[in-house]
């Protein structure tokens, strides 16, 4: 057991898998001696060698293309893209190859790979370093998109993602890389994919979120509790495929729902959750579903960043609107 923050939990999960599965390799830019720009791979190259912890040329298309090739040979490539802002050239390979290799060969070849990237705003980073564009990947068939919101979930979900037989995009909310520490037992125990985690139980309203925004959402729930309002908080964790069962069961109980995400609103994953609540949960909704999200704007440079990011106050105000409705 050791007190571990989120980025250290990523490191521990990577180390565990490298140690226990000889077919796991890591590849990315500056992940070797430098240990990655956020130190997620710190010390791994010296322990597991240059051939398995691979410093690649500066070429994102190559990195993910290689992962597809490696995976077709049964090697589980865990790719680090340095920032999500540099992930877009990988989309061709993800949508044209990684996600469809199993399908187009009827299972002859598969693509067990993980595409890791730090994402999200709130750290006053330079341009192209703060976006939340998870919905781009969630729209792809044949993929999983997993986002941890705590050290424990980062450890367990990353292990599960590496062991998953299909491609996983694993997005790490960098704002909370070092926010909190949790005790992690380094025993290589994975957490389940494709399910939400209910972080706090409540009867009056359901707050649904993922990634760094889970923390603002939990703070909002705490404030609501002070007003004797009991909020259920759900961390979606796997945003594709979506565990609507858990969300619907909660909203059936509470009748009210606020969805919180950092990404732009239109066609954000919140849109899909709201649509499914309308399709399958209309009869038990007591108020319109509320969305608290980033705006449909370009992520502003950092002076205006805090205006873009959803705040605890916004979540509270949306919750109150839902609670006061009829």
């Amino acid at each position: 057991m050791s007190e571990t923050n989120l980025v250290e939990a990523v490191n521990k999960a990577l180390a565990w898998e490298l140690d226990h599965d000889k077919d796991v390799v890591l590849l990315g830019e500056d992940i070797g001696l430098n240990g990655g720009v956020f130190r997620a791979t710190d010390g791994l190259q010296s322990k597991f060698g240059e051939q398995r912890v691979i410093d690649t040329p500066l070429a994102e298309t190559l990195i993910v293309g290689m992962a597809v090739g490696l995976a077709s040979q049964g090697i589980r490539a865990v790719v680090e893209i340095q920032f999500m802002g540099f992930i877009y050239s990988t989309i061709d390979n993800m949508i044209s190859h990684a996600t469809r290799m199993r399908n187009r060969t009827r299972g002859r070849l598969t693509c067990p790979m993980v595409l890791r990237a730090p994402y999200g705003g709130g750290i006053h980073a330079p341009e192209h370093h703060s976006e939340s564009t998870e919905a781009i990947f969630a729209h792809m068939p044949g993929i999983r998109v997993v986002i941890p919101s705590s050290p424990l979930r980062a450890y367990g979900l990353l292990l599960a993602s590496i062991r998953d037989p299909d491609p996983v995009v694993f997005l790490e909310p960098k704002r909370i890389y070092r926010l909190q520490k949790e005790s992690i037992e380094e025993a290589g125990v994975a957490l389940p994919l494709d399910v939400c985690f209910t972080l706090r139980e409540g009867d009056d309203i359901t707050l649904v979120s993922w990634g760094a925004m889970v923390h603002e959402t939990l703070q909002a729930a705490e404030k609501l509790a002070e007003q004797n309002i009991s909020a259920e908080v759900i961390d979606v964790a796997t945003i594709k495929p979506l565990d609507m069962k858990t969300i619907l069961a909660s909203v059936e109980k509470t009748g009210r729902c606020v969805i919180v995400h950092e990404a732009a609103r239109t066609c954000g994953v919140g849109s899909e959750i709201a649509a499914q609540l309308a399709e399958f949960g209309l009869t038990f909704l007591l108020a319109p579903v509320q969305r608290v999200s980033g705006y449909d704007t370009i992520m502003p440079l950092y002076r205006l960043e805090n205006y873009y990011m959803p705040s605890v106050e916004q979540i509270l105000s949306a919750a109150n609107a839902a609670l006061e409705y009829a």
Partner: protein
Amino acid sequence: MGVYDNLNIPYSQYLDHHGQLHETCSDYTSDAKNLINFYKIMLRTRVFDQKAINLQRTGKLGTYASSLGQEAIGVALGAAMHANDVLAPTYRDYAVQLSRGIKMSDLLLYWGGDERGMDYEFSREDLPICVPIATHTCHAVGIAYAMKLRKQPRVMVCIIGDGATSKGDFYEALNAAGVWQLPVIFIINNNQWAISLPRDKQSATKTLAQKAVAAEIYAEQVDGNDVIACYERMHEFIERARTGGGPCLLEAISYRLSDHTTADDAQRYRSPADVEAQWQFDPISRLKTYLLENQFIDAEALDALQKQAEQEVEEQVKIYLNTATQPPEAMFDYLYETLPEALQSQRDEVMRKGKKHE
């Protein structure tokens, strides 16, 4: 100007277009049996190709990309590769795919709109054909990396067209293959046309091969319609890579005698007379001349090979035409190893749709 004129990319031709040999053959290509085998597979590929076009024209096959005139490259490659080497082909590489045991019925099944055509019975580690141009160059680097990591004496071969050499993926792949000295061979089928764009508008470089030089990768050109020269160069490159010599690139110069695909009309951008003039360089007729003039085979045996190829194609077409369509829910069945619960209702939905249409 002219400072890079000394790039010095070697060019090989053994058999000229009149069927005259100008170089000394290796033991392999001195053996009539191997040359007849080259001829046989080129012929099979061409008969298959013509049949596929006919099937498309009569509504029995979807859009199809012909390999007419470029058969020598694939046949030579098929002979130079080992069975456990891995191929990353594009859509025009039937000759090498047939050489590697991939069934004509599967190739037809693919163009006939059925994913099972990519579930090959042999060469099961070969990638399925790559449609988005040049993307498989980076997959090839990954596969070659796996071979090197596992210390396997295997070679990765990636085929691309002339247009692919304009793409960033190609340069990223070459660059990385050079850094890690991977056992990967890049073959360019330079057939002069990327749909409607001619070679001289594709790149200002004198050769496409020289693009490898920037990545410190050894490169040559070869007459892509000369199956003997193709085999000799490919064999040497592949065996060099197998024994740790690192990556190479071979630009095989050929000509696309057909339209780009059956959906294309090449007369919009090139004259039939220009295409007609290219038939004198046909890879099959020059080998035929060489085989006959050297009495490696007689006309009667050649006729028999033609009939044999036609018979094989007919049998394979029958298998293709008799393959029942997959049930509609097949679109879900290889999406993930296990279909996530969230998708189950969509699978049920398409099954209901299928029942309605029965």
